[in-house]
């Protein structure tokens, strides 16, 4: 339970997938070649309604770009070398970024359901990835940061920066 074998590689894979989807959404956001149309057959699933809404900008920045700004550093922080790092700030940064990410998706889900009243499946896939990263990173934080039970370590192998 203490050894992080699958978590680093899983987080890396999630970050790569999330970055890929964010790149796609950013390209479609700025691409004039994308043709908008109203979906035939259903109204709840409507990516264009979501991505063209006023909620698709936060502080004047397209949410798609914010996705890039999240997954790019997250990918770096989830590299195996970062997971192995003895630098406590790297692990703290990863944790804080994941918390910020999950906070953002809670806002975006609220905006989709209450304000826009439509769901974008591409956006939802990013939300799921962000949540999974949050779960993975938060639940490993006590180990990598030496919090909680790590304080009780007595063999000199306490978590990063716990001294």
């Amino acid at each position, binding site marked *: *339970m*203490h*050894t*992080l074998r699958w*978590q*680093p590689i899983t987080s890396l894979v999630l970050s790569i997938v999330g970055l890929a989807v964010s790149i796609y959404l950013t390209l479609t956001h700025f691409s004039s*070649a*994308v*043709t*908008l*149309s*109203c*979906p*035939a*057959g*259903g*109204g*709840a699933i*409507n990516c*264009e*309604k979501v991505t*063209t*809404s006023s909620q698709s900008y936060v502080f004047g920045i397209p949410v798609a770009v914010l996705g890039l700004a999240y997954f790019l550093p997250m990918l770096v922080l989830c590299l*195996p070398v970062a*997971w*192995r*790092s003895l630098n406590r700030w790297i692990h703290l940064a990863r944790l804080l970024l994941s918390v910020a990410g999950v906070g953002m998706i*809670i806002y975006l*889900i*609220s905006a989709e*359901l*209450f304000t826009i*009243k439509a769901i974008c499946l591409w956006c939802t896939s990013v939300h799921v990835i962000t*949540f999974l990263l*949050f*779960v993975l990173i*938060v*639940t*490993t*934080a*006590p*180990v*990598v*940061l*030496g*919090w*909680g*039970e*790590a*304080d*009780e*370590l*007595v*063999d*000199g*192998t*306490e*978590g*990063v920066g*716990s001294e």
Partner: protein
Amino acid sequence: MADNKQTPGGGNQPKPGGNTPKPGVSAKDRSRQQSRPVTAKAAKPPAKKGGPARGGGSGGGSRPPVKKAGSRKGPSGAVLAWGAVAVVIVVVVVIVAVAVTGGSNSTNASFTAVTPAPSSVVSKVTNIPDSVYNQVGVTSSVQVSPPIPLSNQPILMLDGKPGVLYVGAEYCPYCAAERWALVSSLSRFGTFSNLKVTASSHTDVFPATNTFSFEGSTYTSPYLTFQAVEQVSNIPNGQGYYTPLDKITKAQQAILNKYEQPPLDPNAQTGQFGYPFVDIGNQAIVTGPSYSSGILAGLTHSDIANGLSNPSNPVTQAIVATSNYISASICASTKNQPTAVCQSAGVQAATKALAAAAK
């Protein structure tokens, strides 16, 4: 998370009196510490000072305690971590539950009723001065996307005449914008009757964009046949969509299957259809809004209609430029009939622009 009874290798510590660990860290263990990820190091289990190591098993060897922190009185890090995850899950579930519950209560959301179009509005849209058509041409201060020109396609024939097929929906804000130009253009080739006015969905993007509805209208022309299919109304059905209207015929669906799909519609995704779709005699197709519905925001039907005599009006420029593109595409299927329309400066400008786009 932590299992204080286990050795770093996951096994249990050797029984007392068995492989009793020697004081200090072995070279092997030191090497292991240096090579293992810090995350693994942090996960080393504690051992009770002075207490017997419990359990057996191969483990990874045991090490003597070198530090012992005080026992924590609060919850462990693992409990806090999983608690945070649980909080997030609960928050999301509550948000979804409230949205679903609230959604069922908003099934009677407002919509704009479909009513007969005022004659003053119809007259102004169907009688835009030639000078306005010609002065605008395809020049618009608002971005206008031309139809997608098709090549080497047989002319679409409907009821024995070159045809224009429109498939859309009353709720659709993009259709709302397109209808102004369609009514304008088609009126140069024939006559509408029983046109209705309404507005797009009040909850979709570009809400309540004022427009016409082709539902129940008729169109006659010596040059072409116009078929309009409004598949869906703008009345919420209580399940996140809108009540159905016209059923599309098999022949019309066949046209969609061919022309609103790749490769003829390069922007389409296989198996997915969207509104609006306009097949202009198989010479060009419209598969989305030609201009932004947003420019119509806040404008009444009369506002839009009254502005159509002013070629400097940005809304007029967008509608008229789109209309000229549609007219030019129609002329390609009617053998440039009527000449008064097809040879006009505005339509000729659109014809040239479409030819350039086709190259």
